Each structure stands twice: as structure tokens, then as C-alpha cells.
């Protein structure tokens, strides 16, 4: 079931991705791919995470190319958040390796190079947006200018002096996203950043993600909405703690013969059984 690269795929693929390996379904050509020298921001090999006696991640291996917008998709509860926590180095793991920007995940030197936004907005509700961001900026050692920049980037300029606790759910999650953008991190790990946002804002944020990627930032973005998958340069489809596919959207369509990515996902689930 190996897909062919179509011409249209290169439309969304940034320059750094041109020499990416031929897309393939996960597992089959893993060893070969890992041997290849690619500029990877994240390399995960055989990752296993057990929580409450249950395997939350089972032998997950993939790489995230530098400068890509990689979408991590799958139904809720499939292990997306655990995987992202492993990448930022706050998850206890039970096997395998996670290498981020050339260092083992969680190492001290990575702490100012990664931006992480959790699914639930993690910003102090009893501070104003600016105050909260100023604190995180000083922890990161980011210049004070970056606070206003980040607020502007997520479109919260008019609410910069509002208390985070008084913001709407969508605004609060954008405030949380703004924290992740502080100090221009090389890797952004964003857990469902567009949940609860209206289509216009989602469009705004996805444009921002691609602008950041074009400037060299690597993005790992999770979502459980398949229509966001088409906006990624690369897709990781997960189900039940395992990787189902690791491909570009177009290659995934070609491989499954489905135009709709949601149907392509269902196709893969059925094929797996």
C-alpha cells in the first residue's frame, strides 16, 4: 500500500522538506528511514509509555523534519498528549529514546529552545495577559519586547491588559499559545491549539504556524479534527497508542484512494484490523 508522491504535494512542503524520504506507512521502512541522514527536529525510536498498568504508547517511532508543520492526529485518548509530553520531557517513559534538536528530551539545554502549550490553557488566571507573559519571558530569559510580539501574533492585542481569568475560552487558549511563542523557540509543541476557536481565528493561527515554519521553526501540532490535517505538511495518525500512518496528506490520500482525510483515516483503521 505504498503511495506515490504527487506533484501537488510539494505546494505545501517547505524547502527543508524537499529531500524528505518517500512516504510510507509506518513500521515497514522504519529502519531504513532512521539510517538516512535527514535534518530532524525530533527523532523518536521505540517509545513506550505505561500509565496505570496500561500501555499508553506502544513502540512509537517517527521523526519530525525541521521546519515542517507536522500534525499529530487521532481520536481523543489515543496518546497524543502523552507523546507530546514525552517530546517536551515531562513524561516518564518506559522504553525507547526521544531525541529533540539533537539532545535527549528533557535535557537542561533544551528548556529555552522548546515552546509548549498544553491542551488546557496553563496561564495564571489572576494575572493580566501581559503580566503572565512577562513572567514566563523572564523565566525563559526572553527579551521583554517578545511579550508584546507574542500577544500580537495570537491576535490578543486588544486584551493585553485583561485578566486571563476574564477571557473567553478561546482567548485563554491563545494566551497560552502566546507563552509558547515567547523567545522564538526552535520547536513548538502545541496540544490542540485551535480547539474552540471560530473558523476565522483558526485560519489566522494556521497561517501563523506556516509563517513560523517558513522562518525555520518546527511545529508539532495535535488535533482531533481531521479537517485541520490538510493544513499540515506531514501527518502522524495515531490510534490506541500506536502510529497508524506517517505521511504527507496527499500521499495518504493516494495510498488509501480516499480524497477525504477523515475517510482515509477510517480506511487505515479498517486495513489494520
Amino acid at each position: 500500500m505504498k503511495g506515490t508522491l504527487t506533484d501537488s504535494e510539494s505546494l505545501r512542503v517547505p524547502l527543508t522538506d524537499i529531500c524528505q524520504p518517500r512516504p510510507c506507512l509506518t513500521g515497514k521502512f522504519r529502519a531504513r528511514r532512521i539510517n538516512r541522514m535527514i535534518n530532524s527536529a525530533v527523532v523518536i525510536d521505540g517509545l513506550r509509555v505505561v500509565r496505570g498498568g496500561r500501555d499508553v504508547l506502544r513502540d512509537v517511532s517517527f521523526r519530525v523534519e525541521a521546519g515542517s508543520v507536522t500534525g499529530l492526529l487521532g481520536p481523543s485518548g489515543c496518546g497524543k498528549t502523552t507523546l507530546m509530553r514525552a517530546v517536551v520531557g515531562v513524561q516518564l517513559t518506559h522504553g525507547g529514546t526521544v531525541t529533540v534538536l539533537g539532545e535527549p528530551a528533557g535535557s537542561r539545554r533544551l528548556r529555552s529552545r522548546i515552546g509548549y502549550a498544553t491542551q488546557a490553557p496553563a496561564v495564571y488566571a489572576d494575572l493580566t495577559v501581559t503580566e503572565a507573559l512577562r513572567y514566563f519571558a523572564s523565566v525563559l530569559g526572553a527579551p521583554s519586547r517578545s511579550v508584546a510580539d507574542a500577544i500580537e501574533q495570537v491576535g490578543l492585542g486588544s486584551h493585553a491588559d485583561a485578566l486571563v481569568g476574564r477571557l473567553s475560552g478561546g482567548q485563554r487558549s491563545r494566551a497560552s499559545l502566546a507563552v509558547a511563542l515567547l523567545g522564538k523557540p526552535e520547536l513548538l509543541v502545541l496540544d490542540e491549539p485551535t480547539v474552540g476557536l471560530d473558523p476565522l481565528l483558526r485560519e489566522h493561527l494556521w497561517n501563523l504556524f506556516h509563517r513560523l515554519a517558513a522562518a525555520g521553526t518546527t511545529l508539532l501540532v495535535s488535533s482531533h479534527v481531521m479537517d485541520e490535517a490538510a493544513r499540515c505538511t506531514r501527518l502522524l495518525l495515531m490510534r490506541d497508542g500506536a502510529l497508524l500512518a506517517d505521511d504527507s496528506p496527499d500521499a495518504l490520500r493516494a495510498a488509501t484512494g480516499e480524497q477525504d482525510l477523515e475517510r482515509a483515516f477510517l480506511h487505515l483503521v479498517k486495513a489494520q484490523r
Partner: protein
Amino acid sequence: MTASITLATTRRILAQLRHDPRTVVMLVLVPTLLMLLLRFVFNSAEVFSRIAPALLGVFPFVIMFLIASITTLRERTAGTLERLMTMPLGKFDLLAGYALAFGLVAVLQVAVATAVSLWWLGLTVAGSVWSLLLITALDALLGMALGLFVSAFATSEFQAVQFMPLFVLPQALLCGLFQPRDEMGWVLHWLSDVMPLSYAVEALTQVTHSADWTMTLTRNILIVLGCAVLALGLGAATLRRRTP
């Protein structure tokens, strides 16, 4: 440890407090109101002078315990702690930031309560007022450090609030406030021996009754300080970068 991160943390906590004026007012005034109430209950400056110094230590201890355990629990449940753990922030930066911020609040709290007790309620202190302030501030620090530590074992606000009667009230009961420690049975006496608040209250009583700075006073103060540092260290051990 990075001084700039510690200070940024202190500033952040004080900014959070500033947005919650009701809490600030209560922090500053509640111990004073309680002292006032106590003065009227005893209706005698002499009896009040006997018991007030110990309570000047107990009130900030209790309040700081509560405040610290709830704030750190909130930091854990809101995800901001996990976020900070992905950033270049040392555990002691966070704890020292908390200690500084709440320490400042505690000093303010104790200063107001002591001033009112001394000038209005008829409290007489034989020793220096500064040593009284020092010991009460250490009590507050101890309460805060214990609160930080036990909050790690609370998974909800309900549990955190109940840790107060569990960890704090026995110390208050056994510290010599209600019954002289020498008159307790050996089990209770031993228990009061291992509870840091006993030493704080002993030190406070001593400062009120005598102007001499004795070795026992130094020892008591060092024990309180040591327990606070120990609790902070244990608190740091409960802050994990990687969690299951």
C-alpha cells in the same frame, strides 16, 4: 538557582495577590482581629500578655500553611507547574520565589498584629520587639514550607484544606499553649518534642518574659529555621520534572 528567576517568581506571586485585594486585606488584618478578640475574651492585659506571644506565632503559621498549600496545589492543577518544568526554572527558584513573596506578606501580617498588641492591647515584651518579629516571621516561613510540602500529597482543594487540621492543629494543641509541655504525659511530651511549632512558641514565650538572649533561644530559633529549610527541601523533592 538564578536570582533573576527567583525574583521574577516573587514579583509574579505578589502581582497575583494584588489582583485579589480581599485576600490581601484578610492576610494583613485577620491575625490582628483575632488578637483583638482574644484581648476581649481574657479581659485582662496580664493574662493576655501571657498567651498572646505564642498566638502571634501560631496565627501566621496557620494562615501561611493554608495559603501556601492552596497556591501550590493551584499551580499543579492549572498546569502552570508543568509548563514551568519545561522551562529553564530550577525547583529552588520556584520555592525561594514563593518563600520570599509569602515571607514579605508574613512580615507585614505579623508587624501589624504585633504593633496593635503592643500599643493598644497592653502586651508587654521584656525582650526586643525585633527578635519577636524575627521568630514570628520564621513561624510563618515554617508554615509556608510545610504547606508547600504537604500540598504535593493533595489531589484536590478539599484534601489540601483538611491537611490544615491534620498537620497544624495537633502542633497548636501540643505546643504548650493550652497545657505546659512539662505537665504532659510522656507520649504527648515526646510528640510535642518532635513538632517544630513547640520550639517556636517556646522561643516566643522566652522573648516576652526575659530580655536575655540565651543559648536555648538560639537553639529554638535554629530548630525552627532548620525545620523550615527541611520542609522546603522536601517540598523541592516533590516537584518532579517528569511525571507519570
